[in-house]
């Protein structure tokens, strides 16, 4: 077990200092108040500014608390913003994979479809935007569960619904599956929600790696999976590539 991280302690002290009064503080004042070197203080302030916890006045250069701190409890990325930022990558994924693409975000214990790109074969298809999917039976939902964007507890208490004979309804089996999703970095659903249908999904990350949504491709099980019902590796890498590209655009530097 590692000890406390010094820079986080210092960051917390800076936030408390800025929160202690209405006055905006300059770099020198912050450094002097906490007995820190100016360079160290500046580095921490810049980092806090990057995550919108601190804002700097353009005219005076002084610092104050950022608006993001007020909304810590709510999702920080608007779902319509998420769609707008993902739209080109989602189109590219549909064009290259030849499958329908959906983006999901958590909403009240389910997956809200925030974006849907048709399978590019010009057959009659209906927009699913606004529809809700179960967390445990969809690849988008499993990604959100595995990466902690949403908790299963409320739904699990009522009992997990079996949509098909493949749906994971036993909590221990689902837990195992979610561990595997975390290890692999992607999730699959093979006839777990609808017989004959399969899907692959990967996490979309925002600042600091926080998972804000999931993107996935789905279609008939014959196209998504090989003869042994294993998802096609080429499709998996296309989905992950799209997820990583959106994450990079959203500021998740490491992905």
């Amino acid at each position, binding site marked *: 077990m590692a000890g406390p991280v010094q820079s986080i302690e210092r960051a917390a002290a800076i936030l408390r200092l800025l929160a202690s009064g209405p006055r905006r503080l300059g770099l020198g004042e912050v450094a002097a108040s906490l007995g820190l070197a100016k360079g160290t203080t500046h580095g921490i302030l810049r980092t806090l500014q990057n995550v919108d916890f601190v804002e700097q006045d353009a005219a005076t250069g002084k610092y104050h608390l950022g608006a993001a701190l007020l909304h810590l409890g709510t999702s920080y990325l608007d779902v*319509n913003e998420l*769609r707008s930022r993902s739209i080109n990558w989602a*189109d590219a994924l549909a*064009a290259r994979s030849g499958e329908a693409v959906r983006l999901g975000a958590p909403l009240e214990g389910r997956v809200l479809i925030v974006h849907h*790109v*048709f399978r590019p074969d*010009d057959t009659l298809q209906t*927009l699913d935007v606004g529809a809700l999917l179960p967390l445990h039976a969809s690849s988008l939902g499993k990604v959100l569960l595995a990466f902690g964007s949403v908790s299963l507890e409320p739904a699990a208490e009522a009992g997990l619904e079996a949509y098909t004979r493949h749906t994971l309804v036993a909590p221990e089996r689902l837990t195992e599956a979610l561990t595997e999703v975390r290890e692999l970095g992607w999730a699959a659903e093979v006839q777990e929600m609808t017989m004959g249908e399969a899907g692959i999904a990967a996490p979309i990350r925002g600042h600091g790696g926080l998972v804000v949504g999931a993107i996935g491709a789905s279609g008939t099980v014959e196209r998504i999976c090989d003869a042994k019902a294993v998802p096609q590796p080429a499709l998996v890498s296309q989905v992950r590539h799209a997820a990583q590209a959106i994450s990079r655009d959203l500021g998740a530097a490491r992905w």
Partner: protein
Amino acid sequence: MVERYVMSIDQGTTSTRCILFDHQGRLVSVAQREHQQHFPRPGWVEHDAVEIWHTLRRVVPQALSDAEVTPDEVAAIGIANQRETTVLWDRRTGTPLGRAIVWQDTRTAPLVEDLRSRPGDDFFLRRCGLSPSTYFSAPRIRWLFDHGDGLRQRAEDGEVLFGTMESWLIWNLTGGPDGGLHLTDVTNASRTMLMNISTLDWDEELLEFFGVPRPMLPEIRSSAETYGVARSVLPGVRITAALGDQQAALFGQTCFAPGEAKCTYGTGSFLLLNTGTELVRSRHGLLTTVAYKIEDQPAVYALEGPIAVTGALVQWFRDRLGLISTAPEIETLARAVEDNGGCYIVPAFSGLYAPHWRSDARGVIVGLTSYITKEHLARAVLEATGWQTREVVDAMNADSSLALKVLKVDGGMTSDNLLMQFLADVLDVPVVRPMAAETVSLGAAYAAGLAAGYWPDLEVLRRNWHRAAQWLPDMDPRRRESEYENWQRAVERALGWIRSPNPP
């Protein structure tokens, strides 16, 4: 066969983009750089043509290196450009004579008012299909002559050249002062007010009227044909297409048949309807323009309805009112209420374009009561784009025998699902979004690839088009009618606000 890609250069109002496309019309690499906007006086908007040329010289190699493509793998170059922006330059030195005057610039307003009263709209409509507006190039040339000593004489002598952005870029790409090709395409020429819309040649009477000497004008060519070979930036690669950006979007949306239409939703919005080889003269406030001309085939015409403010209203809501922090949040806010609460916003920030063409209009918000919240305003903001589109579609249906059956959409606002559904509801036709978002660039690439033999025909291009989303009408017809009536009453209240005949 090494030629594996087509390059498209989109010289737009705020940036220049270079995109490589493959045989399926899929985007292979993108490089983009912005250029500076100059606002020397209220209503004036200028660009530095040299800066734009330098920008192009940077984005082209970047697009190639990002995709590890060599110039010999590029089959052809196509150019799409911001329309009507006017640049004059010295033939011998290649130096622009002042900054380019951008399409948004309204300095020619007093001149345009004069023209509309004498000789009047009909004189112009018969010849070029356009009624005078600050939007087009010819009044700008006239303004430059009136404000530059000896400029007209130098133009008479062939020392000064005129061009819109594609002419300037092609001239520079093909050698500049050292034998550069001075040409334009029919779509760009159709926006100058100098080209005869029937003959597709410079119109003697219009030239005389505006006092524009013929030696300064570029040669008018087809939108897709081999113009020549680049001598700089991409030496040896053929330049085979040029189109105005909105015509390029129509082409990229593969609206090749009469009756097919697209609307591009950006800061402003531009609805173009293909009318085939038939030249339809609008009696309901639309522009007649050339859609494209492929090699020596007959020109295809379009009716165009430009709307000045659509996305710009969302930006105003964000930047001036501060009610949202990003543009897409307008949808979140608007979805918090069921309807507009009786409130309508007519965004006539600098008058109204099609189909009204009223420079004396200014924006109004009507139907305010103490019941109205910011959520209702957000809805009214989005609905303004829907109703303005409806007005243009009504004008198109009145002018053309081809009633609109489906509207193809592109541009940034198409990510707004509430707006797209509202559009389908108020137009009462399906609204479809294609999988290729970059329709302007794609259109220029398609035209260039056709002329270069990279693609065999229009049918192949059509098969590259795929539907990414579709919204179907789902509104009670009575509600549609009563809401539309309310909108029209709101528009009446916006008209005539500016009393001076010359807007500031």
